[in-house]
């Protein structure tokens, strides 16, 4: 059996070194990369397509759950979360991680987690990957409103702050975020986006359109029950009847 390709992500070099040391000491594991934050983790996963990642849950900016939630479904590694917090253990299991390790990580516990990962990798499935990504998204959502989107261009990932977004439409499994003349693709569905965004700031006007309330210039109602919504920058969108209530609420 070829060795399992591993990356380790932790924002603290010393904490990460503990994991990388253990990975190097373990037969059958090959350390292919290490990252210091969530965006680096996404870049590494996209570029290196590892089999297994050890990732710290609590990292500034983009945490461990956020990283998993932003993954492309067709390449999801097995995940072992590492955390200083007792309470994330449950979440880690709910999300569908292979295992979680408490800091400080002990050798025996590490070995046990690796064994579980081997079993999991032997039976990997797309359905499982989907569940993992969706679970991480849920965990992410339960921790508050979204403040930014993770966007990928090639092998690099970056943030687009929610406040910068003018409007959003759907493109297959992606959200197309319109920021001025540019647009960015971020993984997710309209339903998720609607749930994750501040209802006072964004309103869904169509099955495949969400607009930033403060970008709206005018709303004209149409006799069919729909509305024509004009945004700053000359974008004209049409709301559907299904979402007419929400548009009407804006007019009040």
């Amino acid at each position, binding site marked *: 059996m070829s060795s399992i390709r591993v990356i380790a992500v932790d924002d603290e070099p*010393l*904490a990460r070194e*503990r994991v990388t*040391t253990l990975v190097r000491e373990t037969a059958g594991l090959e350390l292919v990369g290490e990252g210091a934050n969530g965006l680096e983790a996404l870049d590494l996963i996209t570029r290196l397509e590892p089999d297994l990642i050890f990732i710290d849950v609590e990292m500034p900016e983009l945490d461990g759950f956020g990283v998993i939630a932003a993954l492309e479904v067709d390449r999801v590694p097995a995940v072992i979360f590492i955390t200083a917090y007792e309470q994330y253990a449950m979440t880690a299991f709910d999300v569908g991680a292979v295992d979680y390790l408490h800091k*400080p990580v002990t050798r025996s516990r590490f070995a046990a987690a690796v064994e579980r990962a081997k079993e999991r990798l032997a039976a990997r499935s797309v359905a499982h990957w989907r569940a993992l990504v969706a679970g991480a998204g849920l965990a992410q959502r339960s921790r508050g*409103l979204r403040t930014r989107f993770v966007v990928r261009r090639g092998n690099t990932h970056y943030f687009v702050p929610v406040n910068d977004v003018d409007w959003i439409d759907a493109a297959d499994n992606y959200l197309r975020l319109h920021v001025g003349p540019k647009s960015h693709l971020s993984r997710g569905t309209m339903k998720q986006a609607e749930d994750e965004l501040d209802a006072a700031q964004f309103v869904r006007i169509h099955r495949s359109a969400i607009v930033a309330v403060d970008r709206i210039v005018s709303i004209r109602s149409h006799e069919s029950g729909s509305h024509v919504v004009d945004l700053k920058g000359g974008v004209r969108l049409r709301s559907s009847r299904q979402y007419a209530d929400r548009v009407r609420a804006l007019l009040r």
Partner: protein
Amino acid sequence: MRGSGERMLRRVPAPPRDLPALLDAFGVGSTTWYIAAVALPFLLWGARHVQVPHERRRRVVLLALVLLVSLIAASAVINFVVMYGGALQRPGLMQYLPVGLRENVLPWLALAGIVTAVEARRRSVHAMLERERLRAEVAEQRLIALTGQLHPHFLFNTLQGISTLIHRDAEAADEMLAKLSDLLREVLRHRDHVLVPIEDEMRFVRTYLEIAQLRFADRLTFTVDASPDVAEASVPLFILQPLVENALAHGIGAQARGGCIRVAAKRAADRIALEVADDGAGMPNGAPTHEGIGLSNTRERLWASFGEDQRLVVEGHPGHGTVARIEMPYRRHRSSSATSVPVPL
């Protein structure tokens, strides 16, 4: 005294044997009782709002007595007028006095007794509740202080760091362990304190940052300075820690190039300013959508210690970092030695 009593007895009918007559003898049924009943709520209200500072006690008692006597006199006069106002023959003062006293003094005395008892009870219950509330508040403050200062995140990452170093550099592991012990000792030493000398607070922050420096390797530099004129100040225990934690997370942890944290304590007249600045990305200005638990804890604790007389401002300078500043009254630490003020219980 005895003579006059006998004389009074002679003028009133013999002690009645049946209940209605007995009640009548005590003035029950006289208009005074009705006036007293009407006055009761007002007197209760008044008693409730009277504040009795210790040094003014005698004056308040005297005033209450004067009020009582004038009430009795006034109602006696009213009674007299009501009873004999239109009568052709009015009794003399000496004849009216025993009846008047019986019918007027008793109700008002009883009333004064009731008001005093009710109010005394209310005040004692209130004082007890207040004591309980203070006790709970102090306990809560202490709890917030303790839960605020050592995050599991900090503790376990440090332990993880030590466990890393053990295999690579035993000396360094030793050093980190010693620093962590210093920090824990500080926490244990102050577990019963709400206010501590600023010197202790600064030492705590320094040790905390030294450990962080080991954890973040070469990515962190810091300074901790207290100007000499705040040397005797007292500050809420571990008040700076959440701010430092924030600076670490958003100022240093968030960027690969690392950064610098500056902690300073300065004095301006009767105020003291504590500042934690980082040179990170700088929190976007404008109202942050939500504050971390650390910051809201800090606000709560400042509020509990100083009420309105304090400020916590977090200013982001995008591209240049974030400055968190606490302003609060300068309080001198009570003892000149380095011991801290125990919780007043």
